[in-house]
């Protein structure tokens, strides 16, 4: 059974590109564009991985990450944060709020794929 990935990204261009690439890699894909829709999608059907942008309309990626981590029913869902604010503080904040990985924009899609594989347990940790 394919692993499921939820892409939460309000930027349409990167959203469709990531959606295309992930789908091509064989994942079951859903994509939403804001925090509230993401929470509804997660609660309706928890994915194996959330590819979560930090800057979102209505609810930030940090807020969403914290909310998900407070729900024990969702503790098997991995969260990979993406942000264009690529500072060390952002990374530490994301990981402290319960994210499993962090990737700063811009990134090579190969790096993103490697992180996704690692988080979904398809590749051993480096």
């Amino acid at each position: 059974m394919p692993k499921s990935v939820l892409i939460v990204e309000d930027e349409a261009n990167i959203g469709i590109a990531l959606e295309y690439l992930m789908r091509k890699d064989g994942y079951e894909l859903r994509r939403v564009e804001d925090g509230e829709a993401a929470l509804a999608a997660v609660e309706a059907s928890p994915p194996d991985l959330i590819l979560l942008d930090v800057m979102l309309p209505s609810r930030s990626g940090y807020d969403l990450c914290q909310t998900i981590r407070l729900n024990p029913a969702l503790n098997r869902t991995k969260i990979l944060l993406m942000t264009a604010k690529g500072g060390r503080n952002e990374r530490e904040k994301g990981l402290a709020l319960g994210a499993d990985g962090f990737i700063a924009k811009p990134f090579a899609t190969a790096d993103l794929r490697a992180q996704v594989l690692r988080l979904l347990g398809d590749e051993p940790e480096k």
Partner: protein
Amino acid sequence: MIRWGLRLRVFLFFALIVVLGAAAFGLGLQLVASRQPGLEAASLVPALLVGAIGLAAITLWVWFQFDLNVARPILGLARAIETRAHADVAAPVETAEARYLGPLGAALRAVAAKLAEARRGRAEAMAAAAAAETAQKARLEAVIQRVEEAVIVCSMSHHVLLANDRAAALLGRTGAFGLGRPLDRILTPAPLNHALDRLSQGPAGRGTLAVCTTADGATLLQCRIAPIPGQGRREPGGYVLTVADVTEEIEAHAERDRLLSETLETSRRSAANLTALLDALAGDPAMEAAARAHFESCLRDEARALSEATRRLAARAEAAIARHWPMAEVPAWDILNSAAASMPGISMVITEEIAVTCDSLTLVNLLRDLAGRLGEGRDLVLSATPREP
């Protein structure tokens, strides 16, 4: 205890003399009558009365003279000295009535003169000190008026003692600034008090910096605070505040920080979008034509969005850089004079007094550079004329 006056006591003393004298006279007559057989004591009563009245009359006359020439003058001198002890009376002590008191009148006159002289000396010293203080204040006022920064001299209770025109212009718009008024009602007091605490704990004479806002929060001020030594005490007698309005500067810094942050974020976001789109296109040579066209369209949109964002950020960057550049109003004469100073053979023409708002250092360097390039082997004329509007 009853306190009788001097004149009453003297009078009673003389009355006692009369009583005791009359009694002694009576006893004497009685003694005479007892030794003379046949002489009755009653026949001596008229003699006793005449003697007693005579004694009383003489004593009254002596008392009157004593009262007039001794008791009253003593009281008069005492009043005069007491008056001079409590009030500033310049007139000499009147001693005409005390002519029978020997050297007492002259001595008291000398005491009063010395007292008046000491008073005059003290008044002159106080006047000299006040004049020196006024002169010192005037000199200090003149000095701080020449200072380019806004300068305020305050007491430790934050009351304004002195301020130059720049300070009045800077803080006058608060409507509460003026000599004698409390500064801590115009500026936020907490940073001011904290800075003064630091001064009191640090090495003597060292100044410190504080950032305050005006009470209405409209103006951000950078204040350099220096203590004024107190008179013979360790605690400062007040402090001098050098104030600069940094509202514009801080806002400019904040705008540059925002701009840098937004530029970085926009670049990162756009680069991520472009990379993901290109990777999707490059990673699938067999992509369907419709999907490929869609991705290519997205690439063009992304490139357009990046160009637009770059134009927007560049416009803000230009404004932010121009805003930060330090410019001041400088006489054109000073600029040309500075430029010509190191270049022989340059003459200057100034048609009228012109003040130029510019970065004078850069302008001087530019003129020197141009003169250096153009002026080899020929004389140059630097001229400044106002441009027609």
